């Protein structure tokens, strides 16, 4: 065998490898991590988002995306598109300015950085003198006005970033035009606002933080008008006709000023504190938008009563007597309003809000101001993702049924066409329909369209309805009455605080042929669901699987199991549960397998595993895998760690509840408590680190180790388990302690399926001597190919497996890959990954690699993700490492843990927690984009 493996088609193999394997990190799905700036170009109809790590991402029509990365790892503070051009300016927090251009090359647009510069003052000047606070790209397309902390406004020429010193609007220059009383009362301080006159490009409005606003004549370098407010200035808005300006202030007020040269000491036309009379927080940005119908839209950020709603992230929209304060669950980074402006009117139609955790677009044209469903930037992490599952090549029929179910859920969304629609995607239509299912901590499963560049939410399944939880549904944010003031309305889907973490989804399995779905959760619950296009009221059959099988002397110290709701429950169209199996003790379900042809579902926890017949709704068997001395597994995993986490979670929940339930005004105390807790936890962590030098114990694994009975993998296969003459259904189980159990199953023929019981008997038990956790089991057919999925061959989507030649068993542990013969299990081949390179297998799955040269040629291999973040391809059936790519930073433990592979060699991983990305290989999803100008 050895000789055969080494024999010499190496060069040909190397060439073939190049055709088969290529690593691309192509798509980033989801919402960018730590966004820090928003920009929008009305002419390009493209939106730009900057992040704290120096990335800028441009989004237009669905599929049109550009990404740029600043060389510096600094946060993007501001983004400004140059009016009417394919260029944008970014300001980083190191005070550097960068010019980016969308160039066209070969009919495709590319984003690249053209030039950068840092504003420098004269030698010896304080750094604040040139610290940029606001940027105004002038409509002449040549000049950039830069307001600074010193109060001076510098002018730079574009694209050279050359400073035009003679045009600098210094505080001294401004001062000499002001009357004496305005001069003496205030210093200027920093520039807070810079606005060009909406119609006259020679006038610029400058607002200083102490409350002075001037209108500067660029041609004659003089102050045309000045306005003096008693309050600190936050921002200014110039109305469309230029006749009025609106300023907003630190005390939560806004003022309207008439621009007229007659008055020497202008007073505001109107001054209002919208959420007064008690002290309010600052209004940090304001829009005053005129409509043809007369009533303006007044849109402002902040201004909430300081004491009771000071923690809210709100944007208020006032239009006549319609008033809504949109309440966001995360900090607002910036917002902008999309308008169909002409010379006199703004006609706003949509508002784009970039919050820290999501993008929300609100339709201002439709009554009720509904939210638009975003085609991209989906907030995958709206509730913490607890697991994910990828299904490739969904049939059109199932796809349409899922979409139909989802559409019924999305009726509250606006029907407006997505307004940010710049550019045209040249990407070809995705070759197949792929689904990504994400399980969340709040008990939901979200179905995403993962076929193309954009990840789009199709359908959301909630399992919480099956259970009685201690949360009161009325305790929700929607409970606010009509006459509540301020008129808060919660928007967005980001809600990281789960009410009952036991609902969390831990494992998902979808059979794309039958539409059966199995999900399993944190409290040992296993649900089997099937797709129903109609709403239905039905009873969920409830069974208990006692995995301890009456072993005594154990006490479960973890969470209680969930209480199932009795009686018929009404389920909306979509996946509706019909079986609930609850494991006892209610430990996290650690593995799950569903065989839709045999109608069996297998599940495992840290205590054992069970097999359930969902056709007859009967338990086939359970087996305890717990080692008698494993006390730790009994107590509930990590019970002590959990208590701290739990208390944190509870205080979070208290916090969100107090926010939700109106005017309780307890917020400050709670967040203080939380900070205290955090600080304490951090201190404790630091102390521990100082006490113990980093050292690692070298000890062989033993049967007495903890969690050896933890079931890591379950696998159904039709193979030669007992003898080589007849094959039979079998269930394979792998544990954390390196044990593999094999059960032969007797599934009655279809005509007797309801009468005869399914029988199972243990046929084999393999103890790997290296005792590493078994994370994958696979049976290879006579041709050395992995057995197809259940129903795959029946639907003619795969060649039927070769049952003539002898089958082989592949067991993948964290340390080794090992091939055994079947039915007599003896070791045949192995690859010792850990012993050779010190990396351990975290994820493994079979993928089909198509050749990029020959369409019909492809091979099945294992894609492997190691704990070092490497992706490796290991050949089947000879276990030869093929290629290896560094892919995820090894420190990014959650990214590695979140990785899923697709059947075509693509992988998806949550990069930093909220940033799932996909990296297809082989057939890359290269896409070409052209912005529509």
């Amino acid at each position, binding site marked *: 065998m050895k000789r055969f493996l080494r024999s010499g088609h190496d060069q040909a193999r190397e060439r073939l490898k190049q055709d088969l394997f290529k690593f691309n990190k192509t798509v980033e799905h989801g919402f960018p991590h730590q966004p820090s700036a928003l920009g929008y170009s009305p002419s390009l109809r493209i939106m730009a988002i900057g992040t704290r790590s120096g990335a800028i991402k441009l989004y237009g029509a669905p599929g049109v995306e550009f990404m740029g990365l600043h060389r510096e790892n600094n946060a993007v503070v501001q983004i400004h598109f140059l009016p009417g051009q394919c260029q944008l300016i970014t300001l980083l927090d190191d005070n550097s300015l960068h010019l980016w251009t969308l160039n066209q090359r070969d009919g495709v647009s590319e984003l690249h950085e053209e030039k950068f510069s840092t504003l420098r003052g004269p030698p010896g000047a304080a750094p604040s003198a040139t610290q940029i606070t606001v940027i105004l790209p002038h409509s002449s397309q040549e000049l950039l006005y830069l307001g600074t902390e010193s109060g001076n406004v510098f002018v730079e020429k574009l694209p050279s970033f050359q400073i035009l010193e003679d045009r600098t609007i210094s505080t001294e220059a401004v001062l000499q035009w002001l009357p004496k009383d305005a001069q003496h009362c205030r210093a200027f301080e920093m520039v807070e606002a810079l606005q060009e006159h909406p119609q006259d490009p020679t006038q610029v409005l400058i607002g200083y933080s102490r409350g002075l606003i001037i209108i500067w004549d660029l041609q004659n370098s003089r102050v045309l008008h000045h306005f003096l407010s008693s309050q600190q200035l936050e921002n200014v808005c110039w109305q469309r006709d230029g006749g009025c300006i609106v300023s907003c202030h630190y005390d939560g007020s806004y003022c309207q000023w008439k621009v007229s040269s007659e008055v020497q000491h202008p007073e505001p036309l109107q001054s209002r504190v919208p959420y007064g009379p008690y002290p309010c927080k600052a209004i940090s940005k304001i829009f005053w938008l005129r409509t043809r119908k007369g009533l303006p839209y007044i849109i402002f950020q902040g201004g909430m009563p300081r004491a009771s709603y000071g923690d809210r992230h709100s944007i208020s929209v006032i239009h006549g007597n319609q008033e809504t304060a949109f309440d966001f669950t995360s900090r607002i980074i910036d917002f902008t309003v999309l308008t169909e402006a002409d010379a006199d009117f703004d006609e706003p139609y949509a508002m784009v809000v970039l919050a820290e955790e999501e993008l929300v677009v609100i339709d201002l044209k439709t009554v009720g101001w509904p939210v638009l469903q975003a085609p991209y930037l989906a907030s995958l992490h709206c509730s913490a993702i607890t697991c994910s599952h990828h299904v490739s090549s969904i049939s059109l029929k199932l796809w349409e049924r899922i979409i139909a179910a989802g559409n019924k859920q999305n009726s509250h969304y606006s029907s407006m066409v997505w307004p940010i629609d710049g550019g045209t995607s040249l990407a070809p239509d995705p070759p197949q329909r792929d689904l990504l299912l994400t399980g969340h901590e709040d008990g939901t499963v979200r179905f995403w369209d993962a076929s193309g560049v954009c990840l789009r939410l199709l359908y959301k399944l909630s399992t919480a309805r099956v259970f009685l939880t201690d949360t009161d549904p009325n305790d929700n944010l929607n409970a606010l009455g009509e006459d509540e003031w301020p008129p808060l309305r919660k928007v967005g889907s980001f809600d990281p605080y789960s009410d009952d973490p036991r609902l969390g989804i831990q494992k998902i399995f979808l059979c794309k042929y039958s539409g059966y779905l199995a999900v399993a959760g944190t409290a040992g619950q296993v649900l089997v669901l099937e797709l129903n296009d109609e709403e239905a009221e039905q009873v969920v059959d409830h069974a208990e699987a006692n995995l301890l099988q009456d072993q005594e002397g154990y006490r479960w110290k973890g969470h209680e199991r969930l209480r199932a709701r009795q009686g018929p429950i009404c389920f909306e169209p979509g996946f509706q549960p019909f079986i609930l199996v609850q494991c006892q003790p209610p430990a996290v379900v650690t593995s799950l397998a569903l065989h839709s042809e045999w109608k069996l579902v297998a599940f495992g926890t840290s205590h054992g595993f069970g097999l359930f017949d969902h056709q007859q709704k009967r338990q086939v068997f359970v087996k305890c895998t717990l080692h008698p001395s494993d006390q730790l597994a009994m107590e509930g995993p990590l019970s002590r760690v959990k208590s701290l986490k739990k208390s944190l979670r509870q205080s979070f929940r208290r916090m969100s509840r107090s926010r939700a339930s109106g005017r309780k005004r307890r917020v400050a105390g709670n967040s203080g408590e939380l900070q205290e807790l955090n600080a304490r936890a951090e201190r404790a962590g630091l102390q521990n680190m100082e006490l113990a030098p980093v050292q*690692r114990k070298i000890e062989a694994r033993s049967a007495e180790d903890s969690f050896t009975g933890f079931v890591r993998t379950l696998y159904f296969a039709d193979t030669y388990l007992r003898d080589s003459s007849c094959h039979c259904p079998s269930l394979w189980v792998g544990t954390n302690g390196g044990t593999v159990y094999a059960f032969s199953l007797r599934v009655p023929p279809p005509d007797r399926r309801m009468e005869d019981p399914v029988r199972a*008997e243990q046929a*084999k038990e*393999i*103890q790997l001597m290296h005792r590493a956790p078994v994370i994958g089991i696979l049976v290879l057919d006579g041709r050395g190919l992995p057995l197809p999925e259940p129903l795959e061959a029946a639907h003619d989507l795969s060649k039927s497996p070769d049952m003539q030649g002898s089958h082989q068993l592949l067991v993948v542990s964290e340390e080794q890959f090992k091939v055994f013969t079947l039915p007599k299990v003896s070791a045949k081949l192995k690859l010792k990954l850990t012993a050779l390179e010190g990396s351990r297998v975290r994820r493994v799955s079979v993928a089909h690699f198509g050749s990029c040269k020959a369409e019909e040629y492809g091979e099945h291999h294992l894609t492997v993700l190691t704990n*070092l973040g490497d992706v490796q391809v290991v050949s089947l059936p000879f276990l030869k490492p093929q290629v290896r790519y560094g892919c995820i930073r090894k420190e990014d433990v959650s990214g590695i843990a979140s990785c899923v592979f697709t059947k075509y060699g693509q992988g998806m991983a949550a990069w930093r927690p909220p940033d799932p990305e996909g990296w297809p290989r082989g057939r890359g999803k290269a896409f070409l984009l052209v912005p529509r100008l």
Partner: protein
Amino acid sequence: MNRSFNKSQSLRFFDCNAVEVKSKFGAEFRRFSLDRYKPGKFEDFYKLILHIHHISNMDVMIGYADVHGDLLPINNDDNFFKAVSSANPLLRVFIQRQGGCSSLPPSTPCWLEEVDFCNFGTSTLTRKKKVLVTLRNDNLRRRPHLNISMPHDFRPVSSIIDVDILPETHRRVRLYRHGCEKPLGFYIRDGTSVRVTSQGLEKVPGIFISRMVPGGLAESTGLLAVNDEVLEVNGIEVAGKTLDQVTDMMIANSHNLIITVKPANQRNNIIRSSRMSGSSGQSTDSTASHHSLPSSHAEQNFHPDEMESDEETDIVIEGALEPQHISKTPSLPSSSLSRVNGTTFSHRLQRDLTLNNSSRESNGNLHKLLSSLKSDPRHSLVIPRGGIEEDGTVITL
């Protein structure tokens, strides 16, 4: 390859008391049988061996392969009886000329535990084959052998290997965990090591032994010490690897761990006579000579094939019967479990061991059996599949 195997099976069926013996001297084999329970005296056995191999005028030592694949001596009535009674099913006997140990290949130096009877028990069969091969050519170098004592059931726990190919400042230590019940018992940490390079002294990150568990294997061998720098794990350099990677590598190799260290205490180094004159200046440096190791050596010592044969084999239990049939399982003598080398159990064993989902009692028994398999070192290593003379790919006579 299964010829002898089948034969032994048939023998066992006809007469359970008969033990098939296969003795080997040089390249020659002889087969005969003994009564399992009344094998007779060692002296008679010795004569029988001399007779059937036509050995005359020569003192020989007799050894046998025990169930773990270790070569143990037969030199008195007790261990002869033990060898016969524990044969399962075949007793493999190896005959060597007296004094063979002086002709050990240099890769197995005499050291501590092995001073006396170094051929026996130092290694598994595959290693031994090499010894036997070299033995015939090395008569000239024979020197008088000093017999201090004959250990009855001798098993190594550690050894220093590859002294000839390593720089004198380095030590390659092999820990045999299956040979004792002790935990490996040591900790490693990150640290910095000073290397001599062409640019002068250079500080590089390294992995060091940080702690010894009192009473653990590592401590009891005396071959490893706190602050020894770890350079290789089973032939793979640790340079550039993180502490966690090295930890994982060591654990993955824990059944047969070979660590190359640069001892913190350099005073106990072995000084080889051949190098004595010229190499003393080298003792501070390590890397240069270390890296220049001929690769063939590395291959010879860490050939995957050899690692393979050293390794413990997975236990496979085939359960075949209906769960309902058996309610209680008689507890088994653990010795009968020892044949687990990837082949099936005998039929009786299969029946007894049938795993039973409905009967927890038998499950419990199995648990006990499995853990006893593990904790009793005698049952944790088995003869490599196919035995010795059958395995044509390994032996090169």
